[in-house]
């Protein structure tokens, strides 16, 4: 399927999003809420582009991450209009994460005016929703957005330690603005108001996961049976393979 991407003819796969096409073609589009593991959410609206499908008179604005290409189309990823939208979005998001280097860099790049900071909870959270998706993919859904409108925030139910949370920290690791606080000391990890015992790798002794996470993984798969950290697991696997050969 032919797509005219910024004036150049490109081949897109049917059902592919504009963003995926752009990533493949190395056309840069800024995003906050997109992750290749989950696809687009259409939440941050940074990836707005102009698209005109075959038969349409005028180009329309669309979020590149959720717009799926099913027909020949013309796509423009940079224009005054797009620039203006991204500037406003960066201006509005930077208020939530004033100290974050990524937003600072984008604010400079788009010459976004400075507005007074907004105190968010967790601090620096831009509500991209990636943490929710990561937790959901883990099969736990221990965190979700609560409230709506300008009071919306990410939390465990009633802000209490969640029975579902296994302390895997997938949420904290995926967070683009490092907003989810996680403390590790004395063989304990504290995250989302809950304390977890950290388990050491039986080979190298590095604390690599929480007891709950390991138990959960054992339940779901063979992974985690050996109590090995990521790199030791690879090493032992390599040794096994080598011995086999």
């Amino acid at each position, binding site marked *: 399927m032919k797509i005219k991407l910024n004036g150049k003819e490109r081949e897109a796969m049917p059902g592919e999003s504009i963003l995926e096409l752009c990533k493949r073609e190395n056309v840069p589009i800024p995003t906050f809420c997109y992750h290749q593991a989950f696809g687009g*959410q*259409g*939440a*941050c*609206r*940074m990836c*707005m582009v102009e698209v005109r499908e075959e038969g349409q008179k005028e180009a329309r*604005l*669309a*979020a590149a991450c*959720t*717009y*799926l290409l099913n027909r020949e189309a013309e796509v423009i990823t940079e224009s005054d*209009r797009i620039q*203006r*939208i991204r500037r*406003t*979005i960066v201006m*509005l*998001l930077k*208020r*939530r994460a004033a100290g974050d280097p990524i937003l600072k860099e984008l604010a400079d790049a788009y010459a976004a*005016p400075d*507005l007074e900071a*907004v105190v968010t909870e967790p601090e620096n959270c*831009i*509500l991209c*929703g990636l943490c929710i998706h990561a937790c959901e993919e883990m099969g736990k859904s221990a965190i*979700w*957005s609560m*409230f*709506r*409108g*300008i*009071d*919306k925030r990410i939390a465990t139910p009633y802000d209490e330690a969640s029975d579902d949370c296994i302390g895997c920290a997938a949420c904290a690791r995926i967070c683009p603005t490092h907003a989810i606080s996680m403390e590790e000391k004395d063989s304990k990890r504290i995250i989302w108001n809950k304390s977890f015992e950290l388990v050491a790798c039986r080979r190298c002794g590095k604390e690599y996961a929480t007891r709950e996470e390991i138990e959960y993984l054992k339940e779901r798969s063979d992974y985690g049976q050996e109590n090995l950290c990521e790199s030791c697991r690879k090493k032992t696997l390599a040794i096994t393979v080598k011995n086999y050969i």
Partner: protein
Amino acid sequence: MDMIIKAHDDRQTILVCCGTGCTANGARDVFNALQSKLKDHPDIEVLPVVKATGCNGWCEKGPLVRIIPRDITYCSVKAQDADEIVDKTLLEGILIKRLLYRDPVSKEHLASHHLTDFYRKQHKIALRNIGEIDPAQISDYLEREGYQALKKALQKMDSQEVIDTVKAAGLRGRGGGGFPAGNKWQACRNASGQEKYIICNGDEGDPGAFMDRSIMEGDPHTVIEGMILGAYAVGASHGYIYVRDEYDLAVQNLGQAIKDAHSHGYLGNRIMDSDFSFDIELVRGGGAFVCGEETALMASIEGRTGEPRDKYVYPTEKGLWGKPTVINNVETWANIPVIILHGAEAFAAVGTENSKGTKVFSLVGKVVNTGLVEVPMGTTLREIIYEIGGGVLKKRSFKAVQTGGPSGGCIPASLLDLPVDFDSLTEAGSMMGSGGLIVMDDHTCMVEVARYYVNFLAGESCGKCTPCREGIRALLEILTDICNGQGRMEDLQLMEDICLTMQEASLCALGRTAPNPVLSTLRYFRDEYIEHIKNHYCPAGVCRELTTFYIDPEKCTGCTLCVKQCSADAIKGEKKQVHTINESECIRCGECYRVCAFDAVQLGRRDHHEN
């Protein structure tokens, strides 16, 4: 003094309005009192009828009681009036004057609501049965052409003919978007897949709007019949009615109606002995305004968080559970049986070139007759507000009318002659929305109005996308600053920039229209913003931080009305003596300003006085 009317008929029916408004005012007590009084008179039958709340603007005065076939309407009826109504009116044929409506202009007592301007100038299609039938009795609906359209469609039309009729009628979605219903149905019919769904959107959430509630409460079968016809047209076998959780009576009446439609063979397997089967399920919403947005509504039915998604693929292709779905609003469905039964031409004969039929408006605010008003598309705002609505309350001057719910806009007096339809309102910077019309007088501060609506949206946006959530937050901060006298001129430009991005980049229609209250007031009432910012003055005397009140000694007659109204005891003055306001005690609620009949209470500038 009572007037003699013609001798009574042998069989009479009393209709007691039991809509939400009248029920709140004691309609059930009236109903019970009439019923027990009538136990001795088996020749008279009492029927409780749910009538559209506020439909004639009389609900505020209490329960309405109608007596047919003589067509008598009594307002503000109390349980203790039951004896008199039965003894005098029913048995002796005497009208009880004090219970009749008195026309504010002619001062005449009118025997029936049908004689009032408010009612005479309306054209009822969607509301045709409201107040005329008992919604709990399917027989009432059947007597008024009920399920005749379904019979006609199943026996004489194929599904494409049904769609063609809706297309030819030019019916556009009454929920706000105004998308042609026939085209939507066609797209769903053409979509591949065996499983398709029909949804009725009854999640009416606009403050002050209650047209959908009235229809669901007062005429549930018309909604059901419309949906069955839609299902037949697109090939759906299952439907949902999504009702706002607060609408208890609507849920009750719809539930009863679904049950009755089943037992009469209008729902379920092989409807009316045809090959077509269809069923309807009721779903109660969770109370979020955003669930009126169709993709959020479907997410809610599916049990997910009520957040919208991008609609680059329409619900007619991928809707509920990923299947092709037609979703229309209550009022849209209510029009369908009429269109199918009486044909497209009759429907299209009413309205404007691009907006056919009628629209129900809920006329509220500073207007004499509040209530539900159904008028042909293209009726001017002036006709609605002045001829039907009876003009602005207390003869104050008209300032603006807010249309289309919280994300609608404010239309000024200069556009009162605008013929109202989907396109004209959008061009004027507002929108049809679900049909709210809130009349504002000169005591309304337009900056505060914008702030009020943005504040509503701040709590009701789903908060998923950046432009809507953060844009609303920024607008609310700026508007609050302006109302508090801390606005800056450059804020106006900033607001316009933010509004533009919200319109262009928001995920759903809520975010895209959320700037309307700000943009429309900036467009038509910019001077007022500038007064607030530059002169720290609120011309309407609403913004407390910018307002003081004083009494003009020349005009004050010493009537003491303001003294009685002042909750802060800040006004001093004896009868027939000039009053004074103690500024340090005054909480600036503006009550004195509003009640003074002699314009003696005047607005002062806060700065001016402080200096």
